[in-house]
């Protein structure tokens, strides 16, 4: 529960990441950032195998270049994706796990959006904005918002299926099943 991520060794490992190759099952403990990157990498590799071709064309002319995948960008793409304001490359971001400046969000929009979806299950903010007036009621929240939560999970599940994020979809399916059991009378 309190171990460090085996990949970046910096952030806390909160995710148990299991990979299956043939009959071999390997479990590693990762932080959300590295886990998200790894599952993107796996998805890309699986695609590569299925189509029997490299998913990303190496932009470099070097022969026999090993195609390391960073996020869902190739190593060379990750190196050439640069933030115009702070000059951080996407490759550098993947190494340090921290963005360089607010503009990085625009410069790395595509791979970041996928990364955010993996981490949070969403890439859309629905909360406060700067300087927003506070409308907090002093009353406690309604006791049972289970139905609410179910609705939200179902929407997320539909979205996950649409995005072909099956790992996430399976998680959501389990959560929904669990909530339904809890909500059932006589459970």
């Amino acid at each position, binding site marked *: *529960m*309190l171990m*460090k991520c085996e990949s970046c060794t910096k*952030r*806390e490992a*909160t995710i148990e990441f299991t990979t299956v190759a043939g009959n071999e099952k390997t479990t590693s403990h990762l*932080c*959300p*950032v590295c886990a998200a990157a790894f599952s993107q990498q796996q998805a890309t590799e699986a695609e590569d195998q299925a189509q029997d071709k490299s998913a990303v064309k190496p932009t470099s002319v070097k022969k026999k270049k090993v195609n390391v995948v960073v996020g869902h960008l190739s190593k060379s793409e990750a190196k050439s994706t640069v933030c115009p*304001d*702070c000059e*951080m490359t996407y490759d550098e971001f993947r190494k*340090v*796990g*921290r*963005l*360089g*400046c*607010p503009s990085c*969000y625009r410069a790395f929009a595509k791979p*970041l959006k996928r*990364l*955010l979806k993996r*981490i*949070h*299950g*969403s*890439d*859309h*903010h*629905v*909360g*406060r*904005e*700067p*300087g*927003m*007036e*506070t409308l*907090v009621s*002093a009353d*406690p*929240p309604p006791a049972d*918002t289970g139905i609410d939560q179910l609705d939200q999970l179902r929407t997320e599940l539909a979205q996950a299926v649409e995005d072909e994020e099956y790992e996430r979809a399976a*998680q959501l399916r*389990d*959560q929904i099943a*669990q909530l339904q059991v809890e909500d059932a009378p006589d459970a």
Partner: protein
Amino acid sequence: MSLEGLITTPPSWMSGEDDADGIVISCRVRLARNLARYPFSPRMSEDDQRKVIDEVLAAAKDSRRMTTASYFSMNALDANERRVLVERHLISPSLAEDKGERGILFNQDESLSVMINEEDHLRLQAIYPGTQAQQTWAAIAALDEEITGAVDCAHDKQLGFLTACPTNTGTGLRASILIHLPALVLTEDMERVLQGLNQLSFTVRGVYGEGSNASGNLFQVSNQATLGSTEEKIVEGLLRITSQLVDYEKDAQQSLLREARSQVEDKVWRAYGLLAHARVLSSQEFMNLLSAVRLGLTMGMLKVPAAFINHLMIATQPAHMQAEAGGSLDPEERDLRRAQLVRQKLTEVSDGQ
């Protein structure tokens, strides 16, 4: 306000109010914010760092919530003073140990604070006793309104507040509770509870945040996702989980009482006896004994006030003891002093009853 005055007074969040019979010690909400025109902290020059501090302090000066607040620059404090602030949950270990211009602004009762130039330019924090998550949220939202309304904040229509680490993007909100779950640990149900929490997207840590160990059966439970839900929903989710955890813990306590009442009573009273009479107490042993005493309080066996237990927990931390002693203490000296302090405080509290 001086730091010397700080060590003798417990922070307001340790008062033991609304703490579900000693189970929920405190609850905290923090918001990560950045200024739009500067690089994020890891890539900032010292000049930028100074400018950010000036801008934030200027914004905070007009805040109605921070009228009693004082600012401390990390570079103006020695290592032990910085540790005192960590032990009081006012700053993170990394703010204490990092280099560069950085600091902490906090109000007199320590319920509201702003770390400047940590991983994000701003980390606003509200911390309240017990299960007062709604009050905590109300306080931090009001401070957020004042501060982000006065500075140029890094924000995006679709992604919300932009933070250095993508795990904080969106609301930038981390809500957590500090909860004592000794019966769930004793009945070996904690592993199952941890798995369940993880599945519901909650993270569990030790008392001093990332990378710290759970000692004394104290756990910090917080939300994982910061993007895609409103702040209110995240806080409500934490409250819901909290009341579930309290129910589980109370059930586990009841089954302990049914199956092994005398052993549990013996454990509680032995712990009390050791705390009242021991001459040497390591930090680990102390936390375990204090956990048993807190369990005694929750089960109604002991009449020790929760605020007293909470305060002991902070007063016996290394930097607090060193500050009181006025110099550094090696581990053996600390264990002697800890035992002495606990004996003295326990005598005071039992005389007062």
